[in-house]
């Protein structure tokens, strides 16, 4: 379960205070997936990070008894001069006791199929190899919720395909919080949605309704 209690987030800009959302409250029962809708810069990724507990709102709070992943797909998590193995070991150490680290590393090595590149610095990887490592790593753990950000970071086509596969694989056991521009997938893979528009956040219990409203809001202004 994840509960958002009257979250407000704003940034100070030269033109004054800019609100991403005000007084956002909602409760997400375990297992339900949620899509975040909004134009570029509306605050989708920020909301994703706030739900994940790695960014903070100005006021309000996030209450949760679930395990939540890091934002999958976000660039900046890997240290380029370290090998794939060293990066995976680092993250595994953060999330599981030491005696399970070797098992996680083995899982990622097999899943990512990087061959000898697994022992080479991540900065020598192609973007496809990087996304295989990213997804191998996120597959190795069973979080109650996965945060997936396809918009910022390395959101190329291969990456989106991988993330669709991750969701298919994990949707029986986990919930998702998904930021994507692909409305069709959002409809298929999410149960509910939050739409961010003009400094307001609107919660929709029904994803189809959310997409409909978003379409009529976003398309004419394109």
């Amino acid at each position: 379960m994840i509960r958002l209690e009257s979250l407000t987030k704003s940034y100070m800009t030269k033109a004054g205070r800019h609100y991403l959302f005000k007084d956002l409250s909602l409760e997400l029962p375990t297992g339900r997936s949620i899509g975040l809708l909004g134009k570029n810069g509306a605050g989708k990724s920020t909301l994703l990070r706030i739900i994940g507990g790695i960014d903070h709102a100005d006021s309000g709070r996030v209450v949760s008894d679930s395990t939540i992943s890091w934002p999958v797909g976000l660039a900046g998590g890997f240290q380029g001069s370290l090998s794939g193995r060293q990066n995976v070991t680092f993250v595994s150490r953060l999330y599981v006791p030491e005696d399970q680290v070797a098992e996680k590393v083995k899982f990622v090595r097999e899943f990512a199929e990087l061959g000898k590149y697994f022992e080479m610095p991540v900065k020598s990887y192609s973007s496809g190899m990087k996304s295989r490592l990213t997804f191998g790593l996120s597959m190795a753990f069973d979080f109650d919720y996965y945060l997936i950000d396809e918009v910022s970071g390395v959101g190329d086509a291969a990456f989106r395909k991988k993330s669709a596969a991750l969701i298919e694989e994990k949707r029986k056991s986990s919930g998702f919080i998904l930021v994507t521009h692909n409305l069709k997938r959002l409809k298929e893979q999410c149960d509910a949605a939050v739409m961010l528009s003009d400094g307001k956040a609107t919660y929709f219990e029904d994803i189809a309704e959310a997409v409909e409203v978003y379409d009529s809001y976003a398309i004419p202004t394109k």
Partner: protein
Amino acid sequence: MQPSPKRRTSLQIQIAAVRALFWREVHTRFGAYNLRLGYLWVLLAPGMQVLFFLILFSTIRIKVVPYMDAGLFLVSGILPWMMFSSAASRAMGAVEANKGLFNYRPVMPIDSIIARTTLEALLSFNVFMFFLFFLWWFGTTISIEHVPLMVLAWLLLWVFSIGFALIMMVIGHWSAEVGRFIMIFIRILYFASGIMYSLHVLPPEALKYVLWNPIPHVIEHIRHSVAPAYPVHHVSLEYFLQALIVVLFLGLLLYRGNERSMMTSKSR
């Protein structure tokens, strides 16, 4: 399939995070590609300083170092200082430099400070040991009578550095300019810490002010521990301990007040 991440206590999570960050730092600095250069630099940086002052001392032919071997004197001043100052300067940009790591929820800013400062301390201590061995090999008398005192002094300096690094991290987070100003102040402090001269050659008027600085208190004890003939009557570990408690308390207090802000996005 895979077991879900097990519930751990906050302390277990913090220890795991510090541990992971520590090894990440070790691998980054001494990884396969930096191996030779990494190790070499760890020895070269203090080695060159020691050499510089040894040459300087022998040219000006002044007995600036009473009661002990000049090389030993320099080594036991320069390495503790390097540990302290590099911990402080690295802490200044720590929030910005570690932004990517805060994507992993178990990682808190303080963990990176503890991990990095501990690595600095271990490196400096090991390089110190290396130089002691080197000097001993070439005939310098080194006492092992006060090894516990030496270890204690290093441990206290390590904790002091963590506290100080926390303060620097918070300052660097709020204003990089103020942080840089403090780093300049620390460079100046180097000359007022009795590193290339002995406190015993200072006139009492100068000594009075230098002794406000906690660093020479611990450095003089390290010197005394490897060369017991070197007196420690001006300094006191008790004073250093008091300074440590103040610095650590202030560091933790500032950290606690600013942890959230360090992990909050301000703009894009």
